[in-house]
Structure formats: structure tokens, C-alpha cells
């Protein structure tokens, strides 16, 4: 069952997402958090700014969740991506899900994160410590 799927500018309440996916039907709960890292290949980040084509991003996140639910026996699933300016250590993305056994929970969570990074129209802009900014666009 898919519960929360959202794109938000507010801080992600990941404790609430974990509680949302906990159920006696599942023996395993996996939470992934993507957080703002300070160093990338030796360069220092001050903050990140995420931008989204929000309506399509929401739709893609929902489609990924539905596809995951056909591949693994997911009891409950919640996924949230934050946009706007984020400071070091803040949570940019959270995926919480539960399954009867742990192998499926780890696999499904990894697959969902890879799909989000590949398909959901969201972009991050690095604000480096040297004062420059840089959009991250893989393969371009």
C-alpha cells in the first residue's frame, strides 16, 4: 500500500514516515535518507538548492512507487523529496518501506532510489564554499 508520495519545501519528517510504514503485516522496515554532504571530490559545499518540475515529479514518484509495488511484496511505502535551499546535513529525500522479510525491503528501497535519481525531474545546484554555483546535470 502506497501512503505518502510528496514533493515539499518543508523539512522532511522522516520519523513520521517510518511510523507510517510500520505494520504487523511486515517483518522488515528500511528507511533511506539522502542528506546534504559537505565534500564532493575535495570541493566544499555550503548548501544545495533543489528545483523541480513539481507536477511531473510528483507523477513520476507515484509511478515509481506503483512499479516497485508490482516487483516486491511491499506492505507500505512512503517517499518524499524536498526542494528549495537545503543546508549541510539536511534531508533531501526519504524513502521508507516495509515488506514481510528484509531482503525485499533492501532491494526495493535501492531500486526506488535509483529510479528517483534517473527519472524524477528534480535538479540540484551546488553552492560551493568558493562562492560559485553549479547545476548538477549528469552526462551533460
Amino acid at each position, binding site marked *: 500500500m502506497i501512503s505518502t508520495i510528496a514533493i515539499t519545501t518543508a523539512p522532511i519528517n522522516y520519523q513520521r514516515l517510518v511510523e507510517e510504514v510500520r505494520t504487523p503485516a511486515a517483518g522488515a522496515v528500511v528507511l533511506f535518507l*539522502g542528506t546534504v554532504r559537505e565534500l564532493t571530490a575535495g570541493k566544499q559545499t555550503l548548501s544545495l538548492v*533543489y*528545483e*523541480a*518540475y513539481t*507536477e*511531473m*515529479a510528483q*507523477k513520476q514518484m507515484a509511478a515509481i512507487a506503483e512499479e516497485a509495488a508490482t516487483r516486491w511484496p511491499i506492505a507500505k511505502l512512503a517517499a518524499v*523529496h524536498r526542494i528549495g535551499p537545503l543546508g549541510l546535513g539536511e534531508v*533531501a*529525500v526519504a524513502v521508507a518501506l516495509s515488506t514481510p522479510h528484509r531482503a525485499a525491503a533492501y532491494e526495493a528501497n535501492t531500486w526506488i*532510489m535509483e529510479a*528517483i*535519481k*534517473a*527519472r*524524477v*525531474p*528534480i*535538479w*540540484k*545546484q551546488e553552492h560551493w564554499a568558493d562562492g560559485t554555483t553549479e*547545476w*548538477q*546535470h*549528469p*552526462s*551533460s
Partner: protein
Amino acid sequence: MQVAVLLFARLKELVGSAAVTLTIPSAGTVADIRAALGDAYPQTQPLLAHLLIAVDKEYAAPDTRVLPTSEVVCFPPVSGG
């Protein structure tokens, strides 16, 4: 035919606007949108081959038809997460 096109991230920055109007043939496609963007805004050329184009909130193939009422959006490779 004139089509309103929304832009995001580095593409928006290069063009200097979040929305542009492009002129394409009347039975135009997504491939025509890409070509018209490159012609009207030569500064987008380095990104052009990698751009993704969505029509009505779905990823669109080069031969997807574009209507005057279509919601057309161009953007660079995504980098969420």
C-alpha cells in the same frame, strides 16, 4: 505554429527565462522543439543533445506530436536524490 515551452535548471539559466515561445511547423514534433530551441537560443547548443523533453507531464520521444495546447517542458538530465 507557436508553442509555449517551460525551461528548468541550467537550461533556464542559459536562456535567462523560465518560459519561451518557439515557432515550429504546424504538424510539429518534439524533434522540432529541440531544433527550434537551438536556433532561437544558440547558447543552449552545448546542452541540446542531452535535453529531455516532456509533453503533458510525460517523457516524450522525438516523433511525439506537439499541439498548440500541449504542455511542453525542456530540461537537462535530472539530478535529484
